[in-house]
């Protein structure tokens, strides 16, 4: 009889549900894909419902439901921090107590009531244990050091683990605790640079490549790195442990200069055009700050990875936690770090906690040995042909069913300079679009990036785009041996070589790097065929690939989402699982484009 374990995360950000059947992932999805609220933090009711329907079971068939963290331990941290920071925490305490006493503290009862499951089947993992399990048990390595780094879980902000093929499979070695957090320093700088915390960290990474780390020495004041690989923050610069909305103090502002206002123009030298000189100078200062923060984080991760190598040894490091989504830092770890193999959970943020919690129960609690193998990310919902055609008819979209000819037709469109919405098979697990819910374009024109940023995704002009490349054609990238697995999931930003910046300017960032996806035919056959055919037509088996969504929204999940995004943007054509869809007649819907 099959054992079903349902892992869930939520109530902070990135709620998700993952269903294991005898240890095999049969369904995994974030709640945001269903509710359309980016980073949706509610309990993942719709994601759970979908996971169960995907497996053809009811909640009564689920053997264990496991939540990704321990609520009472988290509450202990919040309460004791409020006490320890009295009286500065006077604004935080009422807000947090209101939220916890009213709702979050009674989690077991809420899970039982919401999901209609017997209380004896509800389990709780630890936040960092869930991350560590998602990294190690999903990796191809039978033994590895495991590093988790994020904002904070219950207490831990950075933790080291040893993953082995023998029980207990995952052994905790040490942790740095709240309020000392690498992830929160990066978030504080994210806020300082005018972006939303837990959303704008990618933008800081993108901004960094326009700058030089000339303020790197100032960041040395923020933390002391110990010889044992740990660190201690100077808390005079930070307020996340006592202020409800600000994460940096006036001391941080004094150190780094005035913060950037949200939405302020960003026009450093490379983007300046005829912008006023004051804007250019201020933008360059912000870019240099971002570059300095990025360099500091990379140094910090190398320092901690050194401790992982010293304590665990071996040649493989597995990582998870939000910090592990920093592709630039991952490249630095792979290039300069002590490990020959690096593996990062593709859903390294809190959504991945749902996967790790379920995997921990299967291996760590129920005692099944780990099975190392390739990890597939096509674990989300798919669509059916019949209802899709009905929908297209009802909404008045012109379409033609192309099926096997989809690859050739899409390549024709791409070569003709059209920007294509590509919706194929099951949705991706994790934040990256890897060829299932993607916006694709010919990378050979520099203007393509501008067009996709400003007229299709309506986002900042400085945001970079990633190339997806046939895995057998990676000559244009200077990949360290340790990062080949990262490139499979678009989790590293590697230097480019051989004039790629001239051949494909739309996907090479200003600093000459690219956050590539190495596409393997085994992983994504349809997408690989598309790249190969595009390569046959142009000599470049590579496409600009960005997630199929607009600014502030999660990637599309259903055909309706795809059509709505198509209609609101300047996309030229949409491929909906073998159906080529053109834009609707203008009289049907309002003019496209941002207001």
């Amino acid at each position, binding site marked *: 009889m099959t054992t079903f374990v349902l892992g869930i995360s939520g109530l902070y950000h990135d709620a998700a549900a993952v269903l294991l059947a005898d240890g095999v992932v049969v369904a995994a999805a974030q709640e945001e894909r269903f*509710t359309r*609220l980016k980073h949706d933090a*509610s309990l993942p009711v*719709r994601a759970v419902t979908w996971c169960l329907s995907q497996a053809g079971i009811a909640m009564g068939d689920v053997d264990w439901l*496991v939540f990704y963290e*321990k609520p*009472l*331990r988290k509450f202990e941290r919040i309460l*004791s*921090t*409020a*006490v*320890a920071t*009295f*009286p500065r925490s006077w604004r935080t*305490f*009422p*807000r947090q*107590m*209101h939220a916890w006493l009213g709702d979050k503290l009674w989690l*077991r009862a809420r899970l039982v009531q*919401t999901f209609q499951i017997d209380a004896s089947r*509800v*389990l*709780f993992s630890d936040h960092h244990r869930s991350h560590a399990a998602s990294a190690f048990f999903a990796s191809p390595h039978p033994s590895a050091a495991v590093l988790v780094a994020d904002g904070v879980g219950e*207490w831990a902000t950075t933790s*080291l683990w040893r993953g082995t093929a023998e029980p207990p499979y995952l052994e905790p*070695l*040490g*942790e*740095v605790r709240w309020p*000392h957090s690498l992830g929160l320093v990066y978030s504080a700088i994210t*806020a300082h640079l*005018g972006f*939303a915390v837990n959303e*704008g960290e990618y933008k800081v990474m993108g901004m960094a490549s326009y700058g030089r780390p000339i303020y790197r020495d100032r960041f040395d004041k923020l933390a*002391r790195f*110990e010889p*044992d690989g*740990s*660190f*201690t*923050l100077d*808390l005079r610069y930070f307020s996340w*442990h006592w202020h409800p*909305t600000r994460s940096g103090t006036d001391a941080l502002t004094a150190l780094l200069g005035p913060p950037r*206002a*949200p939405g302020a123009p960003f026009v450093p030298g490379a983007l300046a055009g005829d912008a006023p000189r004051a804007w250019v100078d201020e933008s360059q200062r912000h870019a240099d700050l971002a570059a300095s923060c990025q360099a500091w984080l990379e140094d910090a991760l190398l320092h901690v990875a050194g401790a992982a190598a010293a304590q665990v040894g071996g040649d493989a490091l597995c990582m998870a936690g939000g910090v592990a989504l920093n592709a630039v830092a991952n490249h630095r770890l792979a290039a300069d770090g002590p490990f020959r193999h690096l593996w990062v959970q593709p859903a390294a943020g809190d959504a991945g906690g749902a996967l790790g919690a379920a995997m921990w129960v299967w291996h*760590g*609690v129920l005692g099944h040995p780990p099975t190392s193998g390739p990890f597939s990310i096509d674990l989300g919902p798919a669509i059916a042909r019949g209802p899709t055609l009905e929908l297209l008819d*009802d*909404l008045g979209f012109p379409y033609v069913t192309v099926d096997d000819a989809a690859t050739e037709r899409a390549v024709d469109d791409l070569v003709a300079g059209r920007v294509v919405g590509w919706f194929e098979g099951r949705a991706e697990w994790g934040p990256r679009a890897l060829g299932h819910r993607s916006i694709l374009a010919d990378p050979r024109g520099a203007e393509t990036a501008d067009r996709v940023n400003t007229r299709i995704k309506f986002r900042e002009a400085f945001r970079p785009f990633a190339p997806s490349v046939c895995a057998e054609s990676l000559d244009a990238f200077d990949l360290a041996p340790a990062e080949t697995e990262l490139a499979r999931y678009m989790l590293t930003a590697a230097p480019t070589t051989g004039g790629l910046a001239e051949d494909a300017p739309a996907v090479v960032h200003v600093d000459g790097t690219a956050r590539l996806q190495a596409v393997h035919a085994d992983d994504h056959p349809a997408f690989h065929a598309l790249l190969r055919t595009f390569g046959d037509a142009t000599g470049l088996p590579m496409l600009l690939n960005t997630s199929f969504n607009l*600014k*502030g*929204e999660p990637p599309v999940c259903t055909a*309706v*989402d795809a059509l709505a995004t198509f*209609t609101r943007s300047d996309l030229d054509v949409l491929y909906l699982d073998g159906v080529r869809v053109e834009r609707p007649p203008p009289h049907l819907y*309002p003019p496209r484009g941002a*207001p």
Partner: protein
Amino acid sequence: MGRLRQAYVWATGSVAWRFPAERRRLLSAFARAEHGSALDMLAAVSTTQRRDLRRKYFRHAMDEWRHAGIFRARAAAQGVGDAADAGREEAGLLLEHGIVGGRTLFERLGEEGFLAFVYVAEADAVEQFDVYRRHRMPDPDTHAALGRILKDETFHVSYSRQELVRMAGPDAAPDRLPAVRSARWSRAKEGWLRLSRDIGTVVGGVWLSLLYAVVVAPFRLVARLEPGGWQAPATDARPALNQARSEA
């Protein structure tokens, strides 16, 4: 909308439109409401059994998204406000909308109830925006934007009323339909619950602040933040399953 409510909207608008910070808050709230409404309409496109209504719902969703963008841009143009909020708004993030307990507005109300809700909500919006438009706003661009949005909202009222009449029969008076009455009652109840919740939050905040000052303060003498550096992981001798059952 009754005269009393119109007077209320006029009075609150008089305050809101005068101060840039209040204008930004109000315009941001409109942007979130329109975005949430777009998601509700899109969910209806997916769920409705009435294939003839799908196109109208879809168009309505597109309108609402456009309005959300206009309001967001106007809010940003006020150039004031809390940096954390502004960062989220600049990113276009929406934190919540009509999904309750994992069910969309359409799933909870059904076709007729949903249409009635749309009719009532849009009619309220038309009257509210019309009152605001008659204010002498210090911000002419926002004034003009409200005028453009008002046209769309009027269309939304019109099509939802037509569909309700079609469902109820040609002699039906839309405002007397049980579904419309129920939608009005439901919105009034929601407003009341929201007010109650806000009052509860304020009162709870006062009590919790008192608790903080009186009960928490003495413990400050012994409480310390965790030091930096590696800490040993907590040891737990219980069997793994027992550990997993515990919330602590």
